């Protein structure tokens, strides 16, 4: 788990470079909350505290939450989400290895349903603020309107579904080249970390590949048919944390599928549902909902994709029932 944290650092570095140190404060808040909540639950459940806290799984959850939340949101947004993730989604279901849902995504889904407005106010790029400004935004005053803006997905969505202004992807990207560049670098950071995880054999190639290929294929075909209504593949990949999802969220070893074929189906499903929610749903980004929906399906997929046991005949080995 510590290597997963290390793999996240290039993306975090790019994030902090373009959007200021707010994200570092959020990471600190989430980590602290996660460790305290984890220790509390382990104590309540009479489990060894230091060994389980030390495995870093709570930290990975915390970091994923902090990275998928707007970096200038109020402090309690991340804290409440982390508490929900660790206390409810992880430990009430039996702790690490038992949770059927991805804890970080439960935290995200809870907060985007509860606070859709706050969750879609992201810092504008180029408005790189110092640590004092970021701290003031996170811990104090409500005068955030000057530096925040909706996510690219959100803006584009409003523009595309609006009656009067039909704005194509190209014009949008041209109007905000700074933002585009920033998200491209952050996505590249996650990609680099993810490739290192692959090289370290911590994650297998199945899930990231299936996720990215599905997303690219859907975006490519749909934007070729109607460019004014759908995003192109590049935009789809760099926005809304798709790259983070591909290597760090979908690949959660506990709540996802475990068989090789199952992993392919799982990640394809997540990408498909994400794309559907992005374009036809009520929320700007659907990765969290897509992951949770596929988490529900994971046990069934696993059951039907059991690999053949070596040495058994086809009719016996194809399924274990």
């Amino acid at each position, binding site marked *: 788990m510590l290597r997963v944290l290390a793999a996240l650092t290039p993306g975090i570095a790019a994030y902090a470079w373009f959007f200021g140190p707010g994200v570092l404060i959020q990471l600190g808040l989430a980590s602290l909350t996660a460790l305290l909540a984890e220790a509390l639950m382990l104590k309540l459940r009479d489990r060894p505290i230091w060994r389980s806290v030390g495995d870093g799984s709570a930290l990975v959850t915390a970091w994923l939450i902090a990275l998928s939340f707007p970096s200038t949101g109020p402090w309690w947004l991340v804290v409440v989400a982390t508490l929900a993730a660790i206390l409810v989604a992880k430990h009430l279901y039996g702790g690490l290895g038992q949770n059927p849902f991805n804890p970080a995504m439960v935290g995200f889904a*809870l907060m985007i*349903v*509860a*606070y*859709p407005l*706050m969750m879609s106010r992201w810092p504008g790029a180029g408005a790189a603020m110092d640590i004092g400004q970021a701290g003031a935004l996170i811990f104090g005053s409500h005068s955030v309107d000057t530096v925040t803006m909706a996510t690219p997905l959100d803006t584009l969505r409003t523009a595309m579904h609006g009656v009067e202004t039909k704005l194509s992807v190209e014009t949008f990207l041209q109007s905000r080249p700074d933002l585009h560049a920033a998200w491209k670098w952050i996505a590249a950071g996650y990609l680099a970390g993810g490739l290192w995880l692959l090289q370290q054999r911590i994650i297998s190639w199945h899930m990231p590949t299936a996720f990215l290929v599905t997303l690219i294929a859907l975006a490519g075909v749909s934007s070729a048919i109607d460019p004014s209504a759908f995003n192109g593949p590049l935009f789809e990949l760099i926005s809304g944390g798709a790259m983070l999802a591909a290597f760090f969220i979908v690949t959660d070893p506990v709540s996802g599928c475990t068989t090789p074929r199952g992993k392919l189906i799982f990640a394809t499903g997540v990408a498909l549902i994400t794309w559907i929610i992005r374009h036809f749903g009520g929320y700007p980004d659907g990765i969290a909902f897509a992951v949770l929906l596929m988490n529900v399906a994971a046990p069934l997929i696993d059951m039907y994709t059991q690999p053949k046991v070596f040495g058994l005949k086809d009719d016996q080995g194809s399924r274990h029932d």
Partner: protein
Amino acid sequence: MNAYKEIILNGTWKQNSILAQLLGLCPLLAISATFVNAVSLGLATILVMLLANLVISGLRTFIPYEIRIPAFVLVIASLVTVVDLAFNAFLHDLYLVLGIFIPLIVTNCIVLARVEAFAAKNGLAASTLDGAMMGVGFVWVIGLLGLIREFVGQGTLFSGIEMIFPRAHAIQVLPESYPGFLIAILPPGAFLVLGFMIAGRNWLDARANERQRQWLLEQRMPRANTASERG
């Protein structure tokens, strides 16, 4: 007397229509966003259950066994119509808020379940008490659920109380700047809070059972014996 005690305990706790039998969840989840709405619907349900059990218990010897269900539904539907019209006449604002859920009491499975399982087989007094107590069990659960959801969701208590007592006002418990927790008011919040309440009931029951087991063990075994075993 003991039988009546049993009926009261069954209705409010042991066979609680929601926490134990998980019956009638649709109105429970839909109407419990605020305490006032929840308790109003709960009181209407108590009234219907009490009267339905009373009437059916009185008529139980006349209703042929084969067509008892249509007959029960007919009685319940008439009573619900009475309650529905009464709400419309005397608590009109509240009637507009509760809307379809007052007529829907007729489809609430607790009502039919108690009529079928209890009133059709027991005397007048016991049946009336059973209907009332099952209703009380419904009311305290839906009321608590409404209280929790309203408090977490918008930081107030008794919002909408002016629909019943025009002079009264809702109490703002948390400061005005409380951003609210929208999910508590939305349907997922109802499921989550109800889940915690059922877990809480199971925990209390498990603890009580454990205590009773310990007590029985100590009754059966001489104290010196257990002490030596432990030592």
